[in-house]
């Protein structure tokens, strides 16, 4: 369960380039909800995700996860609850470390690091099994340094890392936008399988309206730091690309891509 109450954040306050990124935003997700967040550039999508993960402090307002107020809790302690996949495959993994070591780091999110052996045999076997669900052969590359993987492989690894330990909230920040179309489909496919199997409460930001129509049980459109409208239930099931695009003041090719 995720709740954002009256979230407000202003960048460069009092300066000529003052920007209200979040303007009293309210959002509530029930457990197991998969909400797709859309909105034009500068609508506040990334700021919202940063506020939920703790990477950004709010000026005012509150964030609750499972009913607990986490507003003042820093990123590394919120990590028990929140996992995130970034748009940039480089951001979610440690490039100079191996696939297995990265998987271990993901495990430390809900199991704080201690002075005991890291990569045990049992763990390696477990990681290999987790990675095998991707069907990319990564289970045989546990000792490969991540920087030598392709962007798609790295992003798939980020995804597996994010869903290990079944986080309370999964944040997907345009996580397929930097990939080529075929790889993007593979990663999206794996995402949907994981989210469905683990019943994860998910917030996915995308610029791709087809994704917004095809996936999730809710659509949330942001505009100028507020929720402009939400679709749920049958309204969401009946949503069309054209219908969603009509809500945008400025339309870009990117929204229709793949539609």
């Amino acid at each position: 369960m995720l709740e954002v109450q009256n979230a407000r954040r202003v960048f460069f306050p009092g300066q000529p380039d003052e920007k209200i990124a979040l303007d009293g935003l309210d959002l509530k997700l029930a457990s197991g909800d998969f909400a797709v967040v859309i909105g034009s550039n500068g609508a506040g999508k990334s700021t919202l995700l940063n506020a939920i993960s703790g990477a950004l402090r709010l000026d005012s307002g509150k964030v609750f996860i499972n009913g607990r107020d986490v507003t003042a809790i820093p990123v590394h302690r919120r990590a028990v609850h929140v996992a995130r996949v970034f748009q940039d495959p480089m951001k979610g993994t440690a490039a100079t470390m191996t696939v297995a070591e990265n998987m271990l780091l993901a495990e430390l999110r809900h199991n704080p690091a201690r002075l005991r052996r890291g990569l045990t045999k049992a763990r390696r076997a477990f990681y290999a099994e987790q990675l095998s669900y991707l069907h990319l052969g990564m289970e045989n590359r546990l000792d490969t340094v991540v920087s030598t993987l392709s962007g798609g492989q790295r992003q798939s690894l980020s995804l597996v890392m994010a869903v290990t330990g079944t986080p309370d909230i999964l944040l997907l920040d345009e996580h397929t936008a930097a990939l080529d179309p075929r790889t993007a489909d593979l990663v999206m496919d794996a995402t949907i399988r994981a989210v469905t199997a683990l019943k994860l409460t998910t917030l996915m930001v995308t610029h791709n309206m087809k994704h917004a129509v095809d996936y999730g049980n809710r659509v949330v459109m942001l505009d100028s730091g507020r929720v402009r409208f939400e679709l749920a239930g049958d309204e969401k099931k009946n949503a069309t690309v054209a219908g969603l695009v009509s809500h945008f003041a400025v339309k870009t090719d990117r929204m229709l891509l793949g539609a």
Partner: protein
Amino acid sequence: MLELISHFWALVPVTIAQSLILSFVVLAIMIPFRILGFPDLTSEGAYPLGGAICAMALMAGLPAWSALLVAMAAGFLAGCATAFIHLRFRIHSLLAGILVMTMLYSVNLRLLGKSNQPVFNLRTIFSFLIDHGLSDIGAKIMVAGAIAVLAFLLLRLYFLTEKGTAMRAVGANPDMAEANGINVWTMTVGGVGLAGSFSALSGAIMVQSQGFADVNMGFGILINGLAALMIGEAVVGKQTVVRQLLAPFVGTLIYYQLISVCLVAGLPPGDLKLATGLFVLAMLAAPSLRGRGAPMARDTMRD
């Protein structure tokens, strides 16, 4: 020529003893630089700090081994101070290191009370072996070598643990580390502190070995250490944790033999810093020269 070789040969044991003692500084340069992604200059101040503290502790009648531990504790604090200044005030790590190193000069002078403090005729960590018939140099090689092996094994063990892996992640990708529940602050402060304690250990052993502490004993230690690290990485590589940990020790052994060759061959000692500096520059510049020739000015600007 033959004379030069025999001259060099005679110096080999002394040089080995010296390099084993200084290998801890090189380790202290490697840990922040390579593992934490935190280029750090504290060692130039933490090394004489370790020496000064050790000298004071010996004068106060502390046993030689305890003096090492006290020195390491002081070095740990110096490292922590640098990391804290960097994290809390967002001052570049190099500048934070320069600040701490400069301030430590005054601290060291205060501790010693004068620029040079002899500690002759006190029992040192080498005394036990010398009592049992080992030569002075032999004892130094045995003791410093044993500490080096111990440090290597403990660090290797540490970096195989969850905590050690987490510390490496902080260097590899701090944002990702944080997002995976790792406290970047504690890891950085602890890691740079650890490095500081190794610098101080080196200074402390050196004081016991040479029989005096000098406020200027750290001058230039950093660039020597960097050169040794570069050599070590060129020889054993840095692809795995074990290689990265081995590099400082191997590099130091080779580096000081090279210096010894230069001195025996008649290079004026005053020119050594220039030679070492040019060598480090060449090693650091090598990848960009090998890759694609010198980058054009406009390329650099576009980055």
